[in-house]
């Protein structure tokens, strides 16, 4: 069932301006913290200073007595969570135990931020500290302090502590047989440290919840429908009674797909009888939201002298914070996905520790697995003196290849991406002293998911599109462009608006690289329904059979020439809408299956200062199959942004925990994301191999760009220094230690 139909596009592919642009360059756009309500209170959250502690008692009386304090809540103010949401609730407000440094234990609402802050100091929490564990290697070892008892699923192999809560494996063929066929083999252990999504806008919301269980929430989120559903599940509310409006969002990258402060603000509002605004500080963002996994990964590979990979094995331990998650699945599946392999086996282990509950971060699980796999492949290429690009081309998965995680691939653009490497000036440029060039390929699944869109023809012929997915990277523009293309009209005749949960059906968040694909497809389907409705009405108006009405170049044409009817434009059709049956509109709700996989290939040049170990990225190129780039600027923007996030993870970004289990660097000074002076320009090449599952061939592009960079940078640094680095980030001390050890 191919949705794709090849045709010449008029609107798609143009570099058109986003409809939200002027508001964003003038400061008028309203983000999470940019709104207020009459009589509003300010909320603040008290957080555990301990990595692991039993909460013996919480005395809120002094805080409640402070002038200006209107409510204090603890877990006692929350009902039992709906089934499946127990961890979400516990992460928002600790129950019997605080499970990590920064875990919320109480919250206040007061007439000013100052009073709220002061009140936090008056809350007396009696803790009994418990043994803690924050590092993945220590956590999996038998005898480690156990973070959550009774969570181990039945398939976990023996020999690990009960912090290893989930196990998966994938693959086909026989690794031992593949190793036996190899001319060279390699076995390596890799480690990566946790990073944070690092969105510049801290979590913020404004909540009203009345005694009758009806409320409103304004919040910066990637998915206000999920925020609604989770808040309701945690607070015992009904979805229809909580209307959630998504503000403009100041970045999310996966980290704003769940609740942290929202149920707390709602609970404070209900208890105080006032609207409550809650805004996180940067320190809270880093201590209590987001972070990604840290990993311990073992890889074994076999290769023939001519570069055929005969066996590929990976064993991945993913540390995912204090609650059971399934992140290792998404390392084990994509690790070797770019390759056509006869013998492949991956194993994933989910590990809980006394760290914040991890949230998704752009292709969650894939970048680290790709780092391990692509590093080992690159090192074998060096050992066998093989061209790393030729080896990747030789082994590349194609249409019809059985993937390392099971399914057989449909058409995709990996080969084209690899071929494009050859044609870049970058790949062929000479390298200087202390410089190295790294190459890596990466994969992400992409998906569609539940999607609702409404579209209306206005009486003046313009088109209104209403959807429910917060726009982070320009999706309102892309959706308007697709609708304009479908109608054959100009982009500026269409306006797409993100609406609240009270005005639209269910939507998955803006995640999974799904919005341009899924919301775009739903908007196209609405447009087609409207055209069909117009055809029905004009057939009656013109007194012809409906098949005599045809849509061409933005107008309805009568195919029966004998009628002598002039084509009608949308303004003309809109003007008679009420005469032909009333307002014209369409709604499309669908589970939007049919997303296509997305491959990317990155090239990175680094220079390493042999005296200090400091790494500079000299040049960077990101190549990716976008299916069809609706607005190329925004596709390039995804490639560039994802690449730089990956570079940061590879070189600087790291959660540092002390012996006491407390986060040592909860600020942008010490948790250092890339700044402009760290980076070169990021060159991009967009490949377009249409996704058969989308009318215009669109593939999601948002996540794949963060998959290859860790390995591309790692390979570049390792080749520059002549020493293999198997631990990210490659901060100057680690790089220097490698240089000195090699001397």
């Amino acid at each position, binding site marked *: 069932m191919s949705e794709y139909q090849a045709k010449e596009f008029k609107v798609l592919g143009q570099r058109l301006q986003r409809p939200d642009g002027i508001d964003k360059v003038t400061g008028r756009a309203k983000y999470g913290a940019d709104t207020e309500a009459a009589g509003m209170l300010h909320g603040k959250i008290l957080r555990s200073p301990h990595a692991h502690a039993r909460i013996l008692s919480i005395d809120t009386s002094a805080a409640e007595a402070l002038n200006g304090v209107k409510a204090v809540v603890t877990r006692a103010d929350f009902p039992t969570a709906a089934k499946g949401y127990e961890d979400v609730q516990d992460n928002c407000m600790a129950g019997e135990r605080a499970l990590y440094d920064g875990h919320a234990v109480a919250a206040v609402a007061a007439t000013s931020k100052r009073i709220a802050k002061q009140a936090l100091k008056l809350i007396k929490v009696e803790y009994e500290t418990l043994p803690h564990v924050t590092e993945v290697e220590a956590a999996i070892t038998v005898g480690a302090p156990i973070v959550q008892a009774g969570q181990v699923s*039945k*398939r976990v192999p023996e020999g690990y502590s009960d912090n290893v809560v989930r*196990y*998966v*494996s*994938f*693959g*086909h063929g026989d690794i031992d047989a593949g190793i036996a066929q190899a001319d060279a083999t390699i076995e390596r252990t890799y480690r990566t440290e946790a990073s944070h*999504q690092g969105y510049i806008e801290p979590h913020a919301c404004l909540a009203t919840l009345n005694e009758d269980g009806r409320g409103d929430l304004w919040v910066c989120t990637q998915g206000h429908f999920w925020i609604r559903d989770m808040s309701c599940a945690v607070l015992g509310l009904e979805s229809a009674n909580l209307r959630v409006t998504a503000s403009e969002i100041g970045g999310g*990258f*996966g*980290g704003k*797909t769940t609740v942290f402060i929202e149920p707390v603000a709602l609970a404070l509002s209900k208890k105080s009888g006032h609207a409550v605004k809650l805004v996180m500080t940067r320190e809270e963002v880093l201590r209590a939201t987001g972070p990604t996994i840290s990993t311990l990964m073992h890889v074994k590979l076999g290769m023939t002298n001519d570069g055929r990979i005969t066996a590929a094995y990976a064993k991945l331990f993913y540390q995912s914070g204090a609650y059971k998650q*399934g992140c290792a*699945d*998404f390392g*084990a*599946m994509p690790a070797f996905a770019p390759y056509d392999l006869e013998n492949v*086996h*991956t*194993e994933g282990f989910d590990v809980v520790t006394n760290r914040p509950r991890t949230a*998704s*971060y*752009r*292709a*969650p699980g894939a970048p680290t697995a790709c780092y391990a796999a692509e590093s080992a492949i690159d090192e074998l290429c060096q050992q066998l003196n093989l061209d790393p690009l030729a080896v990747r081309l030789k082994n590349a998965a194609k249409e019809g290849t059985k993937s390392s*995680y*099971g*399914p*057989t*691939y*449909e058409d995709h653009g990996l080969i084209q991406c690899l071929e494009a490497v050859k044609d870049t000036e970058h790949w062929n440029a000479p390298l200087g002293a202390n410089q190295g060039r790294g190459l890596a390929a990466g994969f992400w*699944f*992409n*998906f*569609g*998911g*539940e999607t609702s869109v409404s579209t209306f023809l206005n009486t003046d012929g313009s088109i209104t599109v209403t959807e429910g997915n917060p726009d982070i990277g320009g999706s309102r523009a892309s959706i308007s462009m697709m609708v304009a293309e479908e109608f054959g009209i100009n982009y500026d005749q269409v306006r797409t608006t993100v609406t609240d949960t009270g005005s639209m059906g269910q939507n998955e968040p803006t*995640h*999974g*690289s*799904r919005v341009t694909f899924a919301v775009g497809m739903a908007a196209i389907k609405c447009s087609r329904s409207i055209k069909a409705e117009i055809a029905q009405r004009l057939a009656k108006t013109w007194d012809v059979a409906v098949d005599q009405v045809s849509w061409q170049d933005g107008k309805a044409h009568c195919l029966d020439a004998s009628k002598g009817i002039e084509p009608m434009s949308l303004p003309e059709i809109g003007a008679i809408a009420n005469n032909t049956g009333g307002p014209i509109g369409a709604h499309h709700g669908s*589970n939007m*299956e*049919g*997303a296509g996989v997305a491959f990317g290939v990155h090239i990175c040049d680094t220079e390493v200062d042999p005296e200090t170990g400091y790494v500079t990225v000299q040049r960077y190129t990101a190549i990716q199959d976008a299916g069809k780039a609706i607005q190329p600027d925004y596709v390039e923007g995804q490639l560039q942004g994802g690449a730089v996030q990956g570079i940061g993870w590879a070189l600087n970004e790291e959660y540092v925990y002390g012996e006491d289990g407390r986060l040592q660097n909860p600020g942008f000074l010490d948790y250092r994301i890339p700044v402009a002076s760290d980076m070169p320009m990021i060159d991009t090449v967009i490949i377009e191999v249409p996704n058969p*599952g989308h009318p215009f061939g669109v593939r999601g592009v948002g*996540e794949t760009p963060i998959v290859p960079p860790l390995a591309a940078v790692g390979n570049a640094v390792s080749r520059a220094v002549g020493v293999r680095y198997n631990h990210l980030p490659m901060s100057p001390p680690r790089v220097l230690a490698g240089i000195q050890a090699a001397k």
Partner: protein
Amino acid sequence: MAHIQIFGSLRDLFAGEDSVELDVKNLRELLLKLPAAYPDCQEEIDEGVSVSIDGKIINDDWFTPIRPDSEVVVLPRIVGG
């Protein structure tokens, strides 16, 4: 009969089989008949799975057709960032 591939660790839930034959015509029938034949997989299915049908990952759509020659692979539920 559709040929359902069971991958890696999921095999433990299917009596160690790497594939099973089931008479199903769409995803809904698959999700009903799999646990009926192999009760151990019920928990996994309840936790959420994605099913790849002819190379496309299907998260939810019960009525996605499964033909006798379809390639069907049961996977953990795909997430995203």
